């Protein structure tokens, strides 16, 4: 997900540098409330740890491998401010000293992975693990789900940045000047890889690390546990955590399988109207006055921005075909993962029977 130089226009880079700078400033200001002399070595060593974890080649179900980002464990151990700074430092080192990832796109990479990734991971972990004991299995699942969705949120933001390039920056003949695909292609193309490999790698390492820390070093989980500090440490010493991650895989699979449930609800989601639906809604709302025929010009123009690359993939009952395509991808991934788990169980049973 490291965007190299040349994929984003300089103005996009400038906007994302500004966004990232805001995040860095807020994070540093928040951390400075603690002792700065303590914060600097903490963030530095954690950034080095994130850098090293990014080099781990994690075996994934199905025989593939993936690299984790390490943003989720940073958010869980350090909190969002620390994670934003540690990941940004790791990304900057990759760009400035190892030549991985662009210099002009450094702001974009930090914005997507360090800021969006950390905030999503932290919010989801806190939400799912709220009130759970430090050694609770729920914390392991929370870390896995947070990791999976944080990486996908970061990838989605990157895909939107890519997808806006050809719309905003093209020459007189219409040839795109930077990343060439519109949102309809950029989002599915980017998300497929992250819904499968990268997301699962992050989920596996985050959940595995939390499970390890519950047994090996529970104090590291105290900072963001939401529990009173003394009680959290006491609880940490009570019982060992589970070692199997099968429940996590089942939770991720269930999460993906159930994603299309939302679209069974009647009507259109609020704010996701097509121009025709909006015109109808406006005329209903203002029925005392003459019905409005025209929708806002900007909406009419932008409504063609989102076009499905492979409309046949979208289920007929989904109104937005691209959205349906994404859901289909998630659904498909979920089925594959479930099948893989079932096959694994069958093979194990068969092996047990033959032994």
């Amino acid at each position: 997900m490291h965007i190299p130089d040349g994929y984003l226009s300089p103005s996009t880079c400038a906007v994302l540098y500004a966004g990232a700078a805001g995040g860095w400033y807020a994070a540093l200001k928040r951390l400075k409330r603690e002792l700065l002399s303590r914060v600097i070595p903490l963030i530095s060593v954690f950034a080095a740890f994130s850098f090293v974890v990014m080099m781990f080649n994690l075996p994934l179900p199905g025989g593939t491998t993936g690299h984790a980002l390490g943003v989720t464990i940073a958010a869980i151990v350090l909190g969002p401010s620390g994670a934003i700074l540690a990941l940004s430092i790791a990304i900057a080192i990759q760009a400035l000293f190892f030549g991985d990832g662009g210099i002009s796109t450094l702001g974009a990479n930090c914005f997507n992975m360090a800021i969006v990734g950390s905030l999503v991971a932290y919010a989801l972990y806190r939400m799912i693990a709220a009130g759970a004991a430090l050694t609770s299995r729920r914390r392991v699942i929370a870390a896995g789900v947070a990791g999976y969705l944080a990486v996908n949120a970061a990838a989605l933001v990157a895909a939107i940045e890519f997808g806006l390039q050809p719309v905003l920056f093209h020459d007189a003949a219409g040839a795109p000047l930077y990343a060439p695909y519109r949102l309809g292609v950029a989002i599915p193309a980017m998300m497929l890889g992250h819904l499968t490999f990268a997301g699962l790698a992050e989920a596996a390492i985050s959940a595995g690390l939390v499970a390890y820390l519950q047994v090996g070093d529970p104090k590291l989980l105290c900072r963001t546990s939401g529990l009173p500090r003394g009680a959290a440490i006491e609880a940490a010493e009570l019982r060992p955590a589970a070692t199997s991650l099968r429940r996590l895989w089942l939770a991720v699979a269930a999460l993906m399988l159930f994603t299309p449930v939302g679209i069974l609800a009647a009507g259109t989601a609020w704010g996701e109207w097509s121009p025709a639906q909006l015109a109808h809604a406006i005329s209903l709302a203002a029925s005392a006055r003459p019905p409005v025929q025209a929708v806002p010009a900007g909406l009419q123009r932008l409504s063609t921005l989102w076009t499905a690359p492979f409309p046949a993939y979208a289920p007929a009952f989904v109104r937005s075909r691209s959205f349906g395509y994404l859901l289909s991808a998630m659904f498909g991934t979920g089925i594959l993962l479930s099948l893989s788990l079932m096959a694994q169980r069958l093979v194990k049973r068969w092996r047990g029977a033959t032994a």
Partner: protein
Amino acid sequence: MRRGFLQSTAVSFARAIARAMLSEQTAQRRGLLQALDPRVRVVGLFSLVLAVTLARKIVVVAALFAAAAALALLSKVSLSTLAKRVWLVVLAFTGVIALPAIFLTPGHPITPSGPASITAQGVHAAVLLILRVETAVTFTTLLVLCTPWTHVLKALRALRLPREATTMLAMTYRYIFLLVETATQMVDARRSRTVGVLPPAEQRRMAARTAGVLLSKSMAMSNDVYLAMHSRGFGGEIQILSDFRMTMRDYAGLVVFLFAGALAIWMGR
């Protein structure tokens, strides 16, 4: 044969160390870039990266690519190193991304129309993207290869990057190698005790365990570092020595870089 977690992770670690070593070696050579003040190198190469991203014409980006190759030769960086480390990697990665654009970009078809006809705009977009990324990454790699990391840091300090940021960058860079070494030892120790191929689930557990132990060690180390800094009187105030001196040659280099960048931006509008 497919490698498991232990082998492939050990290879990743070794590759990172090798890359850092290559940079250290190349930075010692007596070349054009190495002779310039690091601040001039950082500002000059950043301005050329900016010019590459701003230029809208293929011919201008191609000229900048030629300039990058010439700069590499003058700085004693072999083109085969660049080809292996940058050009082929970028071509493989960006090429795969850019290739479908020649069919998917709407525009004037230049092949007989059919379900997948190539458009002029598509070819232009794909060539421009590949060339742009190749050129920008070459400039960045030249900076990395020709400048010791301590000089990059000092140059960033001179460019008014906050002291906290440069201090954290410097400390992180040092600890990366310490942690890579620790992780390599852990991986090697486990490899020497492993016979056969472990099932993927066990490999994932091992990865989590390795990362977990590394995390515990890192946090303990950060505490030790804090205490060591504290014992030497560090209270959050960062003092930095700056011993760079600009010579006439450096000013001339800066003018050439900035002029080339401005010219490329103007011609590539």
